[in-house]
């Protein structure tokens, strides 16, 4: 499969995990989109450095050829999937660890 196909599938899988598998529903929340808007700026910057200086090199045959700040647009999708899935797990564990915290209250230790 080409990077383009995988990147689209990656975004779909990350959103599906958020909505239906882990049910964190982050993509329905304002905090997620505001955070992503901040992250994507720095992602384009660091990705632009990695690609612009040729540290990471892409096979032209595996992408559409469309580029944003030196990096293929597929990287934007890859980054979205990575960030979305990370934040999904972070919130999911937050719920779970919080629940076990309430079942076994430890007032002196608020570390999860």
């Amino acid at each position, binding site marked *: *499969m*080409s*990077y383009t196909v*995988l990147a689209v599938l*990656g975004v779909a899988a990350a959103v599906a995990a958020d909505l239906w598998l882990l049910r*964190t*529903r*982050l993509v329905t*929340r*304002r*905090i*997620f989109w*505001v*955070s992503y808007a*901040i*992250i994507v700026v*720095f*992602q384009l910057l*660091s990705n632009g*450095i*990695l690609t612009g*200086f*040729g*540290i*990471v*090199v*892409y*096979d032209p045959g*595996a*992408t559409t050829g469309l580029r944003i700040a030196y990096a293929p647009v597929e990287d934007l999708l890859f*980054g979205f999937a*990575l*960030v979305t*899935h*990370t*934040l999904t*797990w*972070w*919130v*999911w*564990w*937050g*719920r779970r*660890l*919080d629940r076990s*915290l*309430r079942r076994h209250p430890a007032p002196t230790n608020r*570390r*999860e």
Partner: protein
Amino acid sequence: MGAMRHLSYLAVLAACLLGTAPLELFLGTRVYARPRRLLLTLLPVVLIFVAWDVYAIAAGHWSFDPRSITGVRLPGHLPLDELLFFLVVPVCAVLTLEAVRAVRGWPAGDEPGDEPAAVEEAGGADQVAEGRGTVGEPGGVQG
């Protein structure tokens, strides 16, 4: 450049960590302060995305300038630098989410007691955001 050039990729990652460190230090994001939750978050993410990376490297979707990476290769021809990428970027993402929460107080769905989620689903997200504003401020009560 010479030997220093091999640290190019790592330098980008170090800049990401240094750039986000003030969020933990001054906004009270408490991401590094919750190592268990952070590790449990990183584990599935690293597994999935390293698998993708190993496949992409094998399929030739992307490659790395051998002069700009450490040269340490893990199984699957995965450069050490890439493994670190999948640790650093998620940490920065979580720090950003927690920084936005610390500053704006918006709910993320993991608030204790689940009351904020319940209120938000009833259409009161703005009230929740205002109500939690003081809670999320630096030095305030952090869940």
